[in-house]
């Protein structure tokens, strides 16, 4: 169902968004973490861009695998292995089907296998779960993305670095949820949904 070209565009847009919003992501991470989420992802975006520009992919699986392996190799921190696992997991799924909802569900699965976070723990997972659910029903919109992002604000973190803060983590948007929101906004902008 999805075209490889629109997915390449997706990743390109995502890279642009995290790079443009590096300071914002760093600031969110300063509030409840260590202030580097934007820097980490920007580094990852640059590495991915370099990597994927080398090859001319004709299958989705190889493309996702390169994205995922690059993130796992180059980013570190919590977000490197988490986003990396998402894409590696999507690469495996891409061998079986090219349904976008199924792909992203596999991605979420990869993140949860790596990070063991459930809904409500104030992580990127809280952005992924509603988005995957909406995709399945063909109802992914900007509002869905934005609403789930805002909901992380009132959560108390129990996974990730923000969990050390206990109650002090309440009242701040989770940086990983914000970067995932950029990921899904890029998906809409790339025309990959229903495309």
């Amino acid at each position, binding site marked *: 169902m999805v075209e490889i070209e629109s997915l390449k565009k997706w990743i390109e847009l995502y890279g642009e968004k995290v790079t443009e919003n590096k*300071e914002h992501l*760093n600031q969110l991470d*300063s*509030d*409840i*973490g*260590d*202030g*580097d989420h934007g*820097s*980490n992802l920007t*580094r990852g975006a640059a590495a991915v861009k370099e990597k994927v520009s080398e090859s001319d992919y004709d299958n989705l699986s190889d493309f996702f695998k390169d994205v995922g392996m690059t993130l*796992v*190799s*180059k*980013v*570190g*921190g*919590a*977000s*490197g*292995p*988490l986003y*990396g696992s998402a894409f590696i997991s999507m690469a495996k799924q891409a061998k079986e089907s090219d349904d976008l909802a199924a792909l992203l569900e596999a991605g979420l699965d990869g993140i949860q296998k*790596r*990070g063991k976070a459930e809904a409500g723990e104030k992580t990127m997972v809280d952005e992924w779960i509603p988005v995957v659910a909406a995709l399945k029903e063909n109802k992914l919109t900007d509002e869905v993305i934005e609403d789930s992002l805002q909901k992380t604000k009132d959560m108390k973190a*129990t*996974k*990730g*670095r923000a*969990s*050390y*803060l*206990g109650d*002090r983590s309440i009242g701040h948007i989770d940086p990983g949820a914000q970067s995932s929101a950029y990921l899904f906004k890029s998906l809409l902008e790339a025309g990959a949904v229903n495309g």
Partner: protein
Amino acid sequence: MKKIVNKVEDIVIEMCEGMVKAHPEQLSFNKKYKIITRKKLNTNKVTLISGGGSGHEPAHGGFVGKGMLDAAVCGDVFASPSTIQIYNAITKTESDKGTLLIIKNYSGDCMNFDGAAEMAEDDGIMVEKVYVNDDVAVKDSLYTIGRRGVAGTVLVHKIAGAAAAKGLNLLEVKNSAEKAIENVRSIGFAFTSCTVPAKGTPTFTIGDDEMEFGVGIHGEPGIAREKILSADELSEKMLERIIADLPYETGDDVALLVNGFGSTPLQELYLLNNSVSKILENKNIKIYKTFVGNYMTAIDMSGASISLMKLDKELKEMLDYPSDTPAFKI
């Protein structure tokens, strides 16, 4: 941001090279994967690997050497090294006796070290892991990821290092490391934030009369923002939390680590040591050995932490076992 720096992107590599150049007989540097290793690896002992984000200098490269670590994997500033970096550290330092990973308990570090361990095990390398979680500022709970690892990690390196140097096998070395972890507790405070170079501005702002109590080693906010206290009051407050936690008891022997967070002058650390030592003496907790200095820093944060490790005969022996690394000589 005022720092001694060329390009921000090159900080970790240039800093590692500068460290290795200062100790050319002891250390080597793998630039591709940012791994600092001992120059001469001994394949007849358990290999000890630690590491994490950079910005904690001298940790962890400064603890590579005789009687402590064999390799330190260096992530970007405050970002755990990647799975692939760690995997390469494991394969490049493989010994006949297996490898122990000493991991500070952070989501990022755990995921990357765990992932690397799985990859190495797939290659047939024996790998064991321990997770340091000494910070009593964080509530330990089944429902969270638990405590984080801070300055006590240095003492864990020391104990595990001695066990490995003595020729113990992988499980024995792991047991020693776990015993060290079970017996060490820490807590810290900060007067100022650190400045992550890639961000260029302080992670948090804080009033001239305020401190962040229970802070970690990444400029993360602590338990609470409070008015600054005198050295004696601060020591009392920190020790109260540490002592109650294990608990440490009258008559116990301990190792004491008074650790600066990067920009705290030795003058202040020694003064803090004086306050802490007096209080421990009053409580009849006996200081077997003291370490004062910048061991596990948060880039340029001003502040300090206190760590206590309760010692039995075995731990004392391991603590006294010779070590010769750039930042820790016994």
